[in-house]
């Protein structure tokens, strides 16, 4: 098998896919979080500020979902095919919610009527919430594994996906995005909105910490296969420790009203939690509960070496470019959000 720096190409691509989804969760996570919490504000002005805080960036953030999906398709076509066809109903709902989220941002301020704006505000909140929840449910089921036959086809029913563990991951994801979104928004606001958001970010952080703790305990007790990679390689235990420290740091920074620091810690803890997921699973991507031998791994489900080589080259060229102009856009719109005539 071909390697780069001593690591197989498929493993590299596993990291790229992981990085793309991590980028998506960190970036779109705060957009979705803003969607989830903006109904706490009753005043028109505050709602518009919430919307315009993410206005110039949410579209670019969503691109990471497209990149992640494309990267999965290109590098692990078998995984892409199995995962997407298995989660047919959840993904269809997800797509509809992605559409509603986009149009509610786009259409909300186009009409002055109160009912119109209330309707889209509600649609924005519900779609953001369901997107977050469904992402969590899919992740939860990927962690648990599901019925996959020898041909890589899902043989269960989609109702299997609504199990307690997956729902718990779903709720934790919602909580995490609410926290992340409120930490983003608090940096973008001032005066009374800022004051109110300091309280909201405290509450959402508490919500997240509680659900995260329950989830961790549940995982350790009931899902032993997820800890195998750690027990086999004790050095890796530094990562869960780091995760706990980062989460603790969010609460510390929030208490000290250092929201920039809290937001960065929040983003880093999202990254580290997904790294934990990646390590827990690796090299398996989709675990078959029918027979572990039917599981799809980074090695048996990957594209050809040639494709991986091409894709890694493309990623090496494109990702710094994307990073550069993402940075440029964020820099352009730095500072507190102001609503003017060009705004949403």
């Amino acid at each position, binding site marked *: 098998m071909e390697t780069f720096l001593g690591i197989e190409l498929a493993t590299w691509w596993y990291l790229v896919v992981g990085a793309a989804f991590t980028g998506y969760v960190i970036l779109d996570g705060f957009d979705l979080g803003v969607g989830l919490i903006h109904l706490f504000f009753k005043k028109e002005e505050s709602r518009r500020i919430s919307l315009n805080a993410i206005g110039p960036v949410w579209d670019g953030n969503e691109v990471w979902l497209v990149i992640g999906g494309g990267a999965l398709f290109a590098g692990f076509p078998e995984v892409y095919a199995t995962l997407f*066809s298995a989660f047919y109903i959840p993904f269809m709902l997800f797509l509809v919610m992605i559409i509603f989220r986009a*149009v509610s941002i786009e259409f909300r301020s186009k009409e002055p009527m109160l009912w119109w704006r209330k309707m889209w505000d509600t649609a924005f909140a519900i779609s953001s919430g369901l997107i977050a929840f469904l992402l969590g449910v899919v992740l939860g089921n990927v962690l648990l594994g599901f019925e996959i036959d020898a041909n890589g086809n899902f043989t269960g029913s989609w109702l299997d996906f609504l199990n307690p563990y997956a729902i718990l991951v779903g709720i934790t994801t919602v909580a995490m995005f609410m926290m992340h979104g409120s930490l983003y928004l608090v940096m973008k606001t001032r005066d009374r909105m800022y004051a109110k958001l300091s309280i909201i970010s405290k509450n959402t952080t508490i919500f997240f910490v509680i659900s995260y703790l329950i989830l961790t305990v549940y995982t350790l007790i009931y899902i032993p296969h997820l800890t195998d990679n750690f027990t086999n390689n004790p050095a890796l235990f530094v990562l869960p420790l780091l995760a706990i420290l980062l989460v603790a740091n969010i609460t510390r920074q929030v208490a000290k009203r250092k929201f920039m620091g809290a937001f960065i810690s929040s983003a880093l803890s999202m990254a580290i939690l997904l790294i934990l997921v990646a390590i827990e699973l690796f090299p398996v991507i989709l675990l078959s509960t029918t027979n572990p031998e039917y599981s799809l791994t980074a090695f048996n489900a990957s594209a050809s070496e040639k*494709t991986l080589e091409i894709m890694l080259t493309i990623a090496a060229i494109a990702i710094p470019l994307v990073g550069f102009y993402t940075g440029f856009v964020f820099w352009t719109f730095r500072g507190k959000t102001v609503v003017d005539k060009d705004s949403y």
Partner: protein
Amino acid sequence: MIRNSTNAPTMDVEILSRIQFAFTVAFHYIYPPLSIGLGLILVIMEGMYLKTRNPIYEAMTRFWIKIFALIFGIGVATGIVMEFEFGTNWATYSRYVGDIFGSALAAEGLFAFALESGFLGVLLFGWRRVKPWVHFVSTIGVALGSMFSAVWIVVANSWQQTPAGYHIVGEGMDARAEITDFWAMVFNPSSVDRLTHVIIGAFLAGAFLVISVNAYYILKKRHLEIAKPAFKIALSVAIVTSLAQLMSGHSSAEGVAENQPAKLAAFEGMYEEKAVGDLYLVGWVNEETQEVTGIKIPGMLSFLTHGDWETEMPGLNAFPRDEIPTQVNAVFQLYHLMVAIGMTLIGLGLLGAFLWWRGKLFDYPLVLKLFMWAVLLPQIANQIGWFSAEMGRQPWVVYGLLRTSDALSATVTANQVLFSLILFTAVYSLLFALFVYLLNKKIQHGPESLEELDHGSRQREIAQKIAS
């Protein structure tokens, strides 16, 4: 064979999945061509503004950026649906072509989509935050991004039409196409022709939208100082691109004759195993009797594709029955209507050019009305052009390699697809109604008047003075 509810007949799944894909992709395809076309026109408008500093160009650029954003927003949301559907509905296809198709799709996300979405924020909200030239560079970025997007998608689709640069590994259910030569895959025999055709089609869609809206303003005597120059910019694009489309279409048809002869035979309803190719202007294919009734130019098809009136070409009967498209008349009609619209667009472009030259471009209300309604023509042509290309490729999803009926998701049932199809129909109907409503509203509101702009720029000057 016993069928239970979870194992519905695959025929239903196939038909429903095809309807769903056709519906969602056709709906999506209302928007990207407009983004691509408007992208080009925005670059021209803003370029004119930077060059002349004439506020009328700023007003039209600002106005069309807002329309662009509305179109782009729906295009993105409905585009993500497409990316998911390959996996949800066509899992076997995804496994088969993932090595190739997936790379093109990933490249689209990285090179095109990120560029477009990233800079759109600057276009919309950055007027007062960045220098004019930075804004202009962002506009170019968005326009290029939308075109790159077409590049990768058309490359992927062209590979399905004319596979190249691959080999097949494994057999039966395990068979997969794998890349052997990336550049041969990218530049497969039909990529360049089809990409040119698609991009020009998109330029036409954008140009005729701008023409239409401004024709409306001129008819209503609104925003005249902005509408007239904007009309001329878009008309210039339309004149050049409608003629270029004729050449591109010709080159594309030559490619089809060489690479997908069965498809070309279906375009012209030609059944005989070997005959001189006639070109129909209009006609009706009787699939039972295998005859076409209509007006034809004998030998013209042979002449156009081979440069000789006498060359014999293979008809549909030269191919095995199960390797040719079944809906020949539909393919014939769609293809011929597309060509007819292309010719009409050239006619409109030339009419505009003539009147412009005579200095009477805006003198005839009837002509302006014609231009106002012509916005529908490129849209229809783009849609039915794709329909004839994709239906003409049947029964293959990857030409000669993988049948559409073999490409489905094994786990997905007819009921599930029916559910999602109903869902998309409802959501897209609502979306389309909202789109038309808001587009109309923006058009009725029109570009900002020069006084408003002047006021805005004065505020900006004051703000800059206070800041410094």
